[in-house]
């Protein structure tokens, strides 16, 4: 046949001669033919295989041809059936077609007549199949589109950034739940003018495009404070949406929550102010005293001179410490700390630090006790870091301690950890203060800390050091009773075991 497909034909007829003859005729023309010698066989064949065409004899001994056709059409409604019969009659033809036959072919038929009918039937069949194919494809396409659309909607509704799209007239056409939340709207009406309901800064971002109605590939961003006092900040970005012909279709606004970022920015600028103040104070103090020395109109006694020199020195020491604290922080932030790991003697370090703080310790009459377990494994760490760690903890223990109070420094070990504890009888911490204790710049501020100075960096440095050793920090404190800082540092296996054995 024309398109290479071999049409399948079923012949159902009790006349053997007709069956064989027609089969031979049709196979000669390239058809694939199967035959059934009675109605029931015809039904069996026609309902188990899909035939393109079927020629069914009307009058058969076992069952009516039309009945056979009905059964076949029940299973394969697209098979094209022709009813053939010697009993040509108008009524028969109508009945056949009524029940689904494509056509009626009177017997006897010439080959030409047969081929003509078959050709018509086959064209019909092809049309049916094609229509079926298109319908299926269209359904699939629609399903795809619906799926894509719902997938897109799901995606848009899931993103945490707020999304709002307006058309060139400023009417809302698309939005997501985040946009509703950020803009504090109960609802957004589609195709309703929305510009005047928006925060003026956001309206301005949109109007940049709406007013010019131009579609240049540009975006505008603004930081918008949607809730006062830095409670909620977004970065809103507006971009044009183009029609296929390049004209402006609308504007899309994306709102990103930057509240956290703004908080950090604020903390940082607060920090800078604070640092600037803290750094200038000792400089101003020393400068002030020096000016007294150089002012000829002012007479200073020897005692005064000594006093001022001494105090200048103390202020400069404090300034140096502050600068070191800041350098430590910035070093750690840049992660450029090169640890020099070696075996360190904790007792030596602690003793040196206590010496350093002798003046402050004596001033408050604090008793310092250092206790350590007998069989201590060796700690391998960077000397400067451990020294810094103890300095900060002991400094706090002194600063926040009561007069005549005490500080206990306890070194012990447990399992794979060495435990360093610094305990004081100081003013302690309130529960709220405990949670923020290691945050940068945090300083406990209550009625008892009025006269205590510091940068708020000491403990954040301690935490960084402990973290860098994969250690653990624990704080226990009771307001007005005292505080204990416990540090767990993991021991390095292998090396330490060897040392211990050597020590034994």
């Amino acid at each position, binding site marked *: 046949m024309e398109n290479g497909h071999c049409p399948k034909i079923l012949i159902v007829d009790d006349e053997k001669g007709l069956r064989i003859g027609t089969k031979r005729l049709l196979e000669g023309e390239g058809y694939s033919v199967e035959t059934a010698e009675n109605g029931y066989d015809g039904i069996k064949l026609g309902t188990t295989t899909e035939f393109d065409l079927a020629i069914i004899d009307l009058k058969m001994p076992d069952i009516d041809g039309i009945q056979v056709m009905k059964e076949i059409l029940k299973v394969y409604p697209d098979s094209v059936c022709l009813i053939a019969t010697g009993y040509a009659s108008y009524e028969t033809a109508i009945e056949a077609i009524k029940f689904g036959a494509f056509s009626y072919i009177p017997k006897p038929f010439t080959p030409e007549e047969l081929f003509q009918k078959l050709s018509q039937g086959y064209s019909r069949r092809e049309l049916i199949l094609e229509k079926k194919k298109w319908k299926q494809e269209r359904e699939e396409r629609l399903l795809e589109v619906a799926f894509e659309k719902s997938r897109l909607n799901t995606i848009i509704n899931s993103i945490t950034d707020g999304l709002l799209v307006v058309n060139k007239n400023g009417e809302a056409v698309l939005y997501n739940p985040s946009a509703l939340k950020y803009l504090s709207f109960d609802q957004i009406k589609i195709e309703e003018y929305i510009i005047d309901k928006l925060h003026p800064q956001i309206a301005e971002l949109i109007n940049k495009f709406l007013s010019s109605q131009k579609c240049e590939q540009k975006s505008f961003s603004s930081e918008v404070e949607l809730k006062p006092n830095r409670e909620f900040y977004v970065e809103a970005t507006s971009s044009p949406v183009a029609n296929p012909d390049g004209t402006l279709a609308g504007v899309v606004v994306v709102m990103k929550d930057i509240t956290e970022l703004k908080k950090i920015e604020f903390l940082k600028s607060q920090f800078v102010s604070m640092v600037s103040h803290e750094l200038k104070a000792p400089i101003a*103090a020393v*400068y*002030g005293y020096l000016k007294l020395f150089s002012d000829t109109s002012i007479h200073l006694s020897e005692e005064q001179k000594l006093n001022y020199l001494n105090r200048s020195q103390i202020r400069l020491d404090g300034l140096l410490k502050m600068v070191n604290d800041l350098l430590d922080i910035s070093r750690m932030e840049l992660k450029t700390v090169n640890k020099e790991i070696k075996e360190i003697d904790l007792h030596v370090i602690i003793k040196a630090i206590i010496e350093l703080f002798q003046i402050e310790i004596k001033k408050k009459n604090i008793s310092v006790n250092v206790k350590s377990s007998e069989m201590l494994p060796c700690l391998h760490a960077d000397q400067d870091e451990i020294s810094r760690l103890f300095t900060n903890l002991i400094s706090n223990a002194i600063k926040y301690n009561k007069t005549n109070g005490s500080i206990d420094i306890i070194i012990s070990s447990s399992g794979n950890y060495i435990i360093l504890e610094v305990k004081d009888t100081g003013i302690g911490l309130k529960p709220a203060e405990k949670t923020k204790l290691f945050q940068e710049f945090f300083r406990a501020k209550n009625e008892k800390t*009025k006269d205590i100075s510091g940068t708020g960096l000491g403990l954040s440095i301690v935490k960084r050091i402990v973290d860098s050793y994969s250690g653990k920090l624990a704080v226990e404190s009771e307001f007005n009773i005292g505080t204990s800082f416990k540090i767990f540092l993991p021991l390095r296996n292998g090396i330490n075991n060897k040392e211990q054995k050597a020590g034994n």
Partner: protein
Amino acid sequence: MAKIAIIDDDPDILDASSLVLTSKGYEVVTATNPDDGYKIVKENSPDLIILDVMMNEPDDGFFLAQKFRKEKISSPIIMYTSVSKSLGMDFGVNELVPVDEFVEKPISPEQLIEKVEKLLHAKGGV
């Protein structure tokens, strides 16, 4: 000679400033925090007040100055500041700045004396 109150939490600044002013013949009273500062001003009625901008909290000095003005204390006020003048000022547009002069730390005694004399002269007292 005029009486001057200095309110600053830094004892070294306080001492040095006091010495500079007393050597020029002024009478000086001091305080190290806003509460004590308020007390000494009320008790002594100084002819001039010197305030540090930041004591326990940022802007402590400004709030104290505002408080003085609200209570109709008209003595001229000099503010010590270690950060640029504009930082930390959170006043409404209509509010008058309660401070008459700023002196940035580190303080130059010459500058301080100059400003003190200018303000006292303007006030009309000596």
